[in-house]
C-alpha cells in the first residue's frame, strides 16, 4: 500500500498541521487488558456466528436446504405443512359438501321435467275442455314465460340459471311433442294475444264441433236405440 501522506498533494500548511496533529495525538498502544477484552469479545462473536450457521449472511426469506436442519426450522416447516394440509382439507370438505348438495338437487330436475310434462298434458286437455282457461294460461306465458321455468330450475343450478334451464327445457321439448306444442303456443300467445284468442276460438270451435259430434253420436245412439 502506498503511503497516503503525499507532500506533493499538500501545502506547507498541511504539512505543519499534520505534524501538529501527530504530536497532539500520538499513536498510543492500547493497554493489554483492553486488547485482551476486545479480542475475547471478537472471538465470542465469531463463535456465536459459527453456531448460528452464519444467518447474517443469508436472507431469512431464502434459507438454503442445509439451513433446515436445526430443530426450530424443522418445527417451523412441520407447522407450515400442517397448516397447509388443514386449509386444503377444509377447502376439500367445503367443495365436496357443495357438490353433494348439488347432486341431490340435480336429481330433482328430472322430476320437475316430468311434472312439467304432466302439466302440459293437463293443459292440453283443458284446452280442449275449456277455452277460457287456455286463454288465461296463454297470457301468463306470454308475459313471463321464461321466468316461471327459471324460477323452478334456478334454485337447483344457481350460477347459470337461464342457459341451463333453457337447455333442459329444449331437451324436454324435443322429447315431448306435447311440450313442444305447448312452448310454441306459449310464444305465439305471448307475442300476439289476438292470435291466441283466435286459436282459442278455433279450439273452442273444434271442441264445439266435437260436442256436435257427440250430440250426433248421441243422436245416432238414440236412433239406434230406437
Amino acid at each position, binding site marked *: *500500500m*502506498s*503511503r*497516503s*501522506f503525499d507532500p506533493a*498533494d*499538500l*501545502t506547507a*500548511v*498541511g504539512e*505543519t*498541521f*499534520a505534524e*501538529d*496533529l*501527530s*504530536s*497532539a*495525538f*500520538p*499513536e*498510543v*498502544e*492500547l493497554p493489554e487488558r*483492553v*486488547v485482551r*477484552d*476486545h*479480542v475475547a*469479545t*471478537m*472471538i465470542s*462473536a*465469531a*463463535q456465536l*456466528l*459459527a453456531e448460528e450457521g*452464519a444467518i*447474517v*449472511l443469508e436472507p431469512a426469506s431464502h434459507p438454503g436446504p442445509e439451513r433446515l436442519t436445526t430443530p426450530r426450522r424443522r418445527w417451523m416447516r412441520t407447522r407450515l405443512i400442517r397448516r397447509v394440509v388443514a386449509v386444503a382439507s377444509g377447502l376439500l370438505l367445503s367443495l365436496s359438501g357443495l357438490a353433494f348438495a348439488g347432486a341431490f338437487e340435480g336429481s330433482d330436475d328430472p322430476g320437475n321435467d316430468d311434472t312439467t310434462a304432466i302439466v302440459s298434458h293437463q293443459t292440453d286437455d283443458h284446452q280442449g275442455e275449456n277455452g277460457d282457461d287456455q286463454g288465461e294460461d296463454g297470457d301468463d306465458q306470454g308475459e313471463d314465460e321464461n321466468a316461471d321455468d327459471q324460477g323452478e330450475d334456478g334454485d337447483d343450478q344457481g350460477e347459470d340459471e337461464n342457459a341451463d334451464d333453457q337447455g333442459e327445457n329444449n331437451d324436454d321439448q324435443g322429447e315431448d311433442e306435447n311440450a313442444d306444442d305447448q312452448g310454441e303456443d306459449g310464444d305465439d300467445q305471448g307475442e300476439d294475444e289476438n292470435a291466441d284468442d283466435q286459436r282459442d276460438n278455433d279450439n273452442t270451435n273444434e271442441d264445439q264441433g266435437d260436442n256436435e259430434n257427440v250430440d250426433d253420436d248421441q243422436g245416432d245412439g238414440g236412433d239406434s236405440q230406437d
Partner: protein
Amino acid sequence: MFGSSWGSVLGACRAGAEWAWRQVYEDVAPSLLRYHRARGTPDPEDLVGDTFVRVVRGLAGFEGNEEQFRAWVFAISRRRAIDLARTSARRPEKPDPGDGLTERGGTGNAEDDAMRSLEEQRVLVILDRLTPDQRDVLLLRLLSDLTVEQVATVVGKSAGAVKALQARGLEQVRREISRGAVTF
C-alpha cells in the same frame, strides 16, 4: 501491515482463529483509536471494541485486499461514531469527571502531559472550525494515513470530492493559523 500474508490472515479470521484476529486488531486498532480521539468521539476505546465486533459479524460479506479492509473498518467505525453522536445529542450525558490525561494516553509525566494537552487543545480548536466532512478527510489523510481512495470509501464520496474537501480544509486551517486565533 501484512503484505503478502494478508490472504492467509484473512482466511484464518474467517475460520475464527484467535491469533489472526489479534493480529488484525493490533494492526488497525491504534490508528483507529487515534482517529477517534482527534475526532472527539466519546469513549473511543469502547467504540474501537464495538467496531471490531461488527467487523467480525460482517467479515463473511467482505471481499478485498488489505487496503480495502482497512478502509472498510474505518468506514464501519465512522458510521458507528456518527450514530452514537446522534444518540447522545438526543440524550445528552454529563461528562465523566474521571476523564483525564491518563485515559487519553498520558505518559505519566505532568509537564509532558500538560504540553501535549495544550497542543491537543490547539489542534482541536482548529478542527472545530472545519466542517465535519473537512475534519474527517483531514484526520483520515493526515493522521490515519489513508489514501484518497480509502478516504473516499470511508466517507462515501468520490475521490475528487475528497480532494476538494482536503483542499478547502487545509485552506481553512491556513486562515485560522494566520489569524492567530488559535495561539495560546
